[in-house]
């Protein structure tokens, strides 16, 4: 083998590696570019204080996104995450004693019971999603679209246009306090990310998730209970959303209808922009972390620079589109390579 041949082989090997890692590299490069851009554009961006802001700001989205990563890895989607978060946040406030000026006919119970009822509520909604998708056979897109309405309906019914402010102490501690200057809501996010990562990477259940998303038929033939895995992913997602809703309500200081509506797009975007495939089977919590940071930095950075408010919406959309194009493009390259290999 000549030197030229060796170097050509090495170059093609490294380009192959780069291409195979494109899904992970592209979002990370986007993040670095955004960090550099905003650091130059605004002196207040690259500060410790603002890093803490970004971490806090991605926490609610992040907890939702952990659950959503499980569902998307299965090749499904959950459009009810924000709605379930909202409903669960409202349920926990509904069962908490409110100030006299809050005009809601609520039922105050002990804090632990309120939290238990809220957890039961989000688990129940997740089970309905799971039942509809796996037993009845409704596509997850439609099933969770219906659940989005149901969650909004529960929220509306409980608060009846009013706003509740109080949540149990345990929820306030998790959502709206600091430990040594570090926001506890960010600690909750880190715990969720860690548990999510360990489950997906080091457990049999995690591998089954990837198998179901990668090739459902193959998984089924290998003896994996695909419906159970799908159902479990949807329930996990609903519980993550519910907990995100509870700590979110504590963090923002109020529980009200439509409060987390904007988080649906953010949560899906965080997962997909990070490089997890919308078609399932590829990606993971690591990707979700990068996606969360891209969105967090983008949202926060745009607040730091003086820019036309109308233009901001467009910029967010364009960056999201670019990331999605990369995602699908990389997926296509892989499919072609696979076909060529076969």
């Amino acid at each position, binding site marked *: 083998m000549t030197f030229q041949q060796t170097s050509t082989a090495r170059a093609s090997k490294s380009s192959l590696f780069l291409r195979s890692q494109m899904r992970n590299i592209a979002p990370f490069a986007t993040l670095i570019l955004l960090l550099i851009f905003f650091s130059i554009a605004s002196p207040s961006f690259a500060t410790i204080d603002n890093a803490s802001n970004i971490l806090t700001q991605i926490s609610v989205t992040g907890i939702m996104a952990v659950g959503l990563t499980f569902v998307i890895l299965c090749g499904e989607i959950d459009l009810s995450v924000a709605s379930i978060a909202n409903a669960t946040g409202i349920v926990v406030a509904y069962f908490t004693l409110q*100030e006299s000026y809050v005009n809601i006919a609520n039922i105050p119970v002990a804090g632990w019971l309120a939290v238990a009822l809220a957890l039961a509520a989000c688990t129940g909604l997740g089970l309905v999603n799971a039942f509809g998708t796996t037993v009845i056979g409704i596509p997850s897109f439609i099933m969770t679209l219906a659940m989005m309405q149901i969650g909004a309906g529960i929220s509306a019914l409980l608060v009846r246009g009013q706003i509740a402010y109080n949540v149990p102490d345990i929820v306030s501690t998790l959502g709206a306090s600091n430990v040594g200057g570090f926001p506890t809501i960010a600690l909750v996010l880190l715990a969720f990310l860690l548990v999510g990562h360990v489950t997906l990477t080091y457990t049999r259940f995690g591998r089954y998730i990837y198998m179901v998303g990668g090739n459902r038929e193959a998984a089924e033939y290998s003896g994996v209970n695909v419906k159970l895995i799908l159902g479990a992913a949807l329930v996990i997602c609903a519980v993550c959303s519910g907990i995100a809703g509870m700590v979110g309500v504590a963090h923002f200081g109020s529980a009200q209808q439509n409060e987390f509506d904007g988080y649906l797009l953010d949560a899906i975007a965080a997962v997909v922009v990070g490089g997890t495939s919308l078609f399932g089977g590829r990606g993971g919590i690591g990707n979700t972390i990068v996606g969360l940071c891209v969105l967090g930095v983008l949202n926060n950075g745009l607040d730091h620079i003086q820019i036309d408010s109308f233009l901001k919406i467009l910029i967010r959309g364009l960056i999201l589109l670019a990331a999605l194009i990369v995602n699908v493009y990389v997926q296509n390259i892989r499919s072609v390579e696979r076909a060529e290999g076969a």
Partner: protein
Amino acid sequence: MSEDKHSKSRRDFIRTAGVTAAGSAAAMLGGLGISPAMAQEMAAATGRSEKPLKAAFSNAGLQATWCAQGKQAAEHWGKLFNVEVTWFDGQLDAVKQRAAIDNMASQKWDFVAIQAFGIGTLIQPVQKMIDAGIPVIDMDTLIAPLDKINVHTFLAPNNEFMGAAVTQALVQKLGGKGKIIMTQGALGHTGAQGRAKGFQSVIAANPGMEVLDDQPADWDVTKASRLWDTYLTKYPQIDAAFFHNDDMALAAYNVMKSRGRTDILIGGVDAMPPAIAAVADGRMYATVRNPSSRIHGGAIVAGVAAVTGGEKTGEGIPKNVVTDGPVVTKDNAAGMQWMQNHFLI
């Protein structure tokens, strides 16, 4: 006793003035501390309908506290004036409200009252009702420019005044000198545009005031919190903050509190009960009442006056009734809460 005299003299005045139902409307709209029982008595004497009237109401969306309070007020005053109120929820969505108003227009009503979510989206069904001879009372937001559609009357606060009044209260407290941030509602919303205009007019008249930022949070408490995370990082000195509504103000207060920056004077708009409590205990400095009860209750009174008293636009009721509320500070917070409890403002 003196209260009795007061109500009698008021009734005498109304009779003398020769105004029938509109008189009670004026009295109620005046928000002069009339209890519901007195109002019922007055309603009977002046404009209460003998046969039950059927009215249809729609406001922007019942998920908004302001709209939910308006519904309660309309139902409360409806009971007093023998009006059965049917509600068509706008759901904070122009398309959904249009469908609701289309349904409304296919039924028979003695009068209807509508707060449009989007200007110009309801013209056709509203015109259909006007053509059928149904008095249409426009509440808070224009259904269409008043020269384009012949509504019975338009009951609305002046958003520019509200923005200016609260900003003025903040500026005055600062002695005309300081750094201020305005957090806007949705930029496309006429209410937000008016409030911003009012804010700007006061700032222009006070050269000592510096506006640090004026980004919109779209009425969204999560966005308001995010913006204020940034502001508190970016600006070491912020003296005052004006929010286009109280919900955003209260959300931002949480952020300020968590960073120990509660020295910032906060002003809001709406003066709903949670904000009144915040003003009373010093979390907020001031807010201005956007009188939901006065507007929705006023629509009942205007509707009854039109049906039973034959009141016509320009004859008895003007085309445009400005329903401004006062600035609420610690001094008048308790009274404002009481008036809201009784749907007077």
